[in-house]
């Protein structure tokens, strides 16, 4: 009964979304407050209905109700509770339901907290949100309904074992919150285009919501990468897999949007560009959903292989993105351009950031979609792998990262590049020292690596020295420094930490890529091997029974210079349902990096192939991402308005007209 109630609530949500799509937009056109006023209760009702629906499905999973096809196909009664719950979104239908639930949550947030928005803007935004909701609800109910019932089955088929993992249990919700969060920027952009104006309240809203989406996206991607690192057993952390790119492109676009929305809020410049970027960012999110869901991509993520669904989503894409871009083409010229600024200024540096990020996003886009397009046209299969991205994306990011510390030093409207560089002298010195030290330590290694390390240090030191300058760390008394540090807005700390986080990630990426060491050894019990200063001794392997799998667990003693460090137990698992093998890598975390051990195939006579990797500083990649996300939250907690004080023109400089 609960299942059917959930199904009914889902259908009712569609009907309410239709109401929310038509009447408030109409009301906004005719300026009828009563019609516009229906948007808020409709948005709240949608959230309630979808929550009922989602909880009903979760209930079916938890109680293992195998009269629901979706539960039967993706769950198993002996699965641990966590994976019963995460199984709800571990499959296509359930994950779509989670998608619209999050969408409804964002819509409800506008209804609840949007009191300070102009009534028509609010009605238009909620109307556009409802358009998206209607499209996806139609898709769910007619093409991938999670509530389809079947004659009761005795036992379920189980969840894909590689998805039975804590990090992956929470990876999709975060990623979706990021994807769907960008729908806010999209709805605001469309609302602005419908009204033909973007006012101050517009930017005031778009930036924090984009930031919230960006935080979720950052965490989601980091979790996915972290999972791939320890679960897939290759010791790699990013593979330029199309599915990874599908989440990375919205991130790049959201990062660009975040910065341009900042310019818009503080200085009312870059309006038209921000609107376009908002449309593009959400379009890329939709694409990400489409790429993963339609089964175009054959990878671990593509749990929906059904061309009919692909066609449905393709239609959604064409209508939403095509419609949005057509509206943009018609209405954008009517939007008023905002304040002007000199090329060398804070705004200018953010424009450079936007250009490089969107170009980088475009290269990823081409690398991801070109093989698919080529295959569908000529049937030829090509694979675009890391070499392409290393040659296109990385060179675009280097200037971005090089100039990143400069931006915060430039004043709004017109800046002083030379002055900014002088203030960064300390950071430059730190980078130079890092370069020399890295080159001296690893003079045999790849010659580019020390430069990469220097780049990472430059970013971190640049971010820290900006803070040092702002609190007058040098030259002011301790009390004064403390007072200034306290008074510095949290948003400033956010900027600093986010940039430092990027630097940390760069350090981790460079070190791991350049200096990873790897050994593949056939080991019999008692055999020893050396890697990266550690000695490992293989003591044997034995079977073990888990809750829903059996595994071979290897026992490896890790010593360093004769003193025992730890014991590692990498494993090979075979799950009961479905019967599928996974590798469970054992990782020893040291301050220099990770020792990563994978148990391979059994050899004749009791030996095993053991793969050992040493990944120097690899953890910095994810620590950097967590720092970035924390910085985003910090900035988000700063509810004050953002105002950028322009530098006034001095004497000779003609002041650009407003």
């Amino acid at each position, binding site marked *: 009964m609960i299942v059917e109630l959930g199904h009914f609530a889902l259908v009712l949500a*569609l009907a309410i979304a239709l109401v929310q799509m038509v009447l408030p937009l109409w009301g906004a056109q005719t300026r009828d407050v009563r019609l516009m006023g*229906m948007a808020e209760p409709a948005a709240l009702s949608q959230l309630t209905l979808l929550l009922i629906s989602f909880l009903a499905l979760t209930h079916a999973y938890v109680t293992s109700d195998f009269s629901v096809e979706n539960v039967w196909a993706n769950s198993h009664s002996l699965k641990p509770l966590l994976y019963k719950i995460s199984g709800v979104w571990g499959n296509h239908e359930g994950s779509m339901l989670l998608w619209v639930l999050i969408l409804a949550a964002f819509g409800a947030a506008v209804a609840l907290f949007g009191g300070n928005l102009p009534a028509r803007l609010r009605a238009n935004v909620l109307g556009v949100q409802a358009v998206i909701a209607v499209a996806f609800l139609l898709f769910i109910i007619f093409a991938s309904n999670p509530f389809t019932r079947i004659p009761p089955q005795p036992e379920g088929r189980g969840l894909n074992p590689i998805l039975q993992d804590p990090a992956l249990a929470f990876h999709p919700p975060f990623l979706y919150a990021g994807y769907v969060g960008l729908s806010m920027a999209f709805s605001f952009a469309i609302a602005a285009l419908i009204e033909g104006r973007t006012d101050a309240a517009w930017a005031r809203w778009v930036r924090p919501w984009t930031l919230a989406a960006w935080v979720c996206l950052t965490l989601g991607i980091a979790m996915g990468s972290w999972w791939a690192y320890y679960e897939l057993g290759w010791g790699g952390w990013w593979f330029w897999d199309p599915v990874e790119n599908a989440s990375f492109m919205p991130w790049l676009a959201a990062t660009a949007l975040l910065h341009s929305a900042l310019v818009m809020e503080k200085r009312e410049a870059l309006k038209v560009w921000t609107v376009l970027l908002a449309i593009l960012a959400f379009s890329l999110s939709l694409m990400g959903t489409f790429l993963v869901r339609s089964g175009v991509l054959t990878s671990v993520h593509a749990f929906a292989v059904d061309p009919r669904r692909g066609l449905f989503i393709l239609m959604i894409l064409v209508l939403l993105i095509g419609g949005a871009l057509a509206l943009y083409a018609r209405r954008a010229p009517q939007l008023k351009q905002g304040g002007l600024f000199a090329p060398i200024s804070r705004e200018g540096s953010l424009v450079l950031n936007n250009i490089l990020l969107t170009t980088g996003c475009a290269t990823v886009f081409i690398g991801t979609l070109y093989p698919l397009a080529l295959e569908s046209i000529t049937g030829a299969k090509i694979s675009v792998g890391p070499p392409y991205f290393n040659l296109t994306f990385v060179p675009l990011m280097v200037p971005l990262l090089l100039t990143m510390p400069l931006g915060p030093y430039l004043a709004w409207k017109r800046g002083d590049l030379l002055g900014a560089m002088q203030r960064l002298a300390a950071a430059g010195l730190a980078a130079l020292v890092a370069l020399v030290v890295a080159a001296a330590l690893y003079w045999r290694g790849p010659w580019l690596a020390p430069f990469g390390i220097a780049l990472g240090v430059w970013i971190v030191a640049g971010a820290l020295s900006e803070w040092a300058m702002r609190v007058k760390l040098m030259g002011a008394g301790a009390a004064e420094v403390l007072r200034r540090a306290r008074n510095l807005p949290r948003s400033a700390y956010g900027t600093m930490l986010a940039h430092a986080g990027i630097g940390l990630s760069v350090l981790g990426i460079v070190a791991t890529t350049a200096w990873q060491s790897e050994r593949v050894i056939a080991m019999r019990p008692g055999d020893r091997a050396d890697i990266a200063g550690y000695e490992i001794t293989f003591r044997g392997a034995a079977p073990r029974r888990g809750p829903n799998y*059996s595994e071979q667990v290897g026992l490896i003693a890790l010593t360093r210079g004769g003193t025992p460090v730890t014991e590692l137990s990498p494993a090979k698992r075979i799950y009961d349902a479905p019967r599928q093998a996974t590798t469970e890598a054992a990782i020893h975390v040291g301050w220099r990096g990770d020792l990563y051990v994978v148990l391979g195939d059994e050899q004749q006579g009791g030996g095993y192939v053991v793969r050992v990797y040493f990944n120097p500083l690899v953890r910095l990649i994810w620590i950097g991402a967590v720092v970035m996300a924390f910085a985003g939250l910090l900035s988000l907690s700063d509810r004050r308005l953002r105002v950028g004080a322009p530098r006034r023109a001095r004497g000779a400089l003609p002041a650009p007209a407003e």
Partner: protein
Amino acid sequence: MLLWVGFAVLTAVVLAAVLAPLGRPARQDEPAESGTLAVYRHQLDEVEADRARGVMDAGEAEAARLEISRRMLNAASPARSAVSAAAAGRVRPIAIAVAALVPLLTLAVYLTHGSPNLPSFPMTARSKAPQPSTQLDGLIAKVEERLRAHPEDGEGWDVIAPVYFKLERFRDAADAYARALRLKGETVKRLAGFVEASVFAADGIVTEEARIACQKILKLEPGRHEARFWLALAKEQDGQLGEALADYKQILADSPADAPWRGPLTERAEAVSARIAAVTKGGAPGPSATDMAAAQKLSPEQRAQMIAQMVDGLAERLKREGKDLSGWLRLVNAYVVLDRKEEARAALADARRNFGGDDRALGELDTLAKRLGLGS
């Protein structure tokens, strides 16, 4: 019934909430500019606060204030005349339309997709499947834990191997026997256990490892019946039907009259001799004696066709159900016997793809390929 009451309540509550704003008095839309101006006023306050806290100096604050004031003027200037409020009469038809259409649409869509009469079927409502005794589970877990800590404890492997076998965890059993053999030496008992477990784990196929173990048994204890039987079965599976039949007959002859295996063994021997008859007459193996009886009545062409159909049927089935290892082994064997080497290779490749990651299955496929001279 309760379900329908739930539907009705849910619909009524939602409709009441959504329609509530229509009952409010028709008010003029407030000018859109008021919100904008409020934001600018907040910004001015913010600048003042920043200046007070020393984040902005006086000059910066002045510049910012100037700019915001300019924006305020800009926002206020295009005086937008608010269009007249909606006619009051329009609200009632809208409310009626929504109140009618929402339940209708919901019901229409729900009734085409939902199954309101199908009861739930949660796990707890079902009688629990017979669980293996938890005591035994606990004991096994203890031994396994000990073995994880001391993988070189042959005694433990010796103890747990037959237990695994009883629980039908054949692969684990074979593995445990193999370890015990390596650690504690080769005895007939361990070898026999290993052979049995490996054959069961491989769905009845006598693997290369099992065959070698059988030969070892016969070295230690010549004439041991079960080892001889497995070897004969291996020959049969290799397609050496004549030798297999001879071996079966020899074992039967050596067995005491009341040996329990006489019955099954006799059946086996009969099946093989039927197959031999098929091979000598039609040039291809038929799967069972009854099929053979039917095949005898056919002309050689018809018979060949029938056999080809059977093989193709097997191939078809495996395309759908790729996880049937013994099926694949049979198919590859059949292709070789029919002298369709290319297809045998293709089937082997398909099978390998199906068992990617499953080392034991791959090992068996390799063994078969070597035995049939297919190369790899």
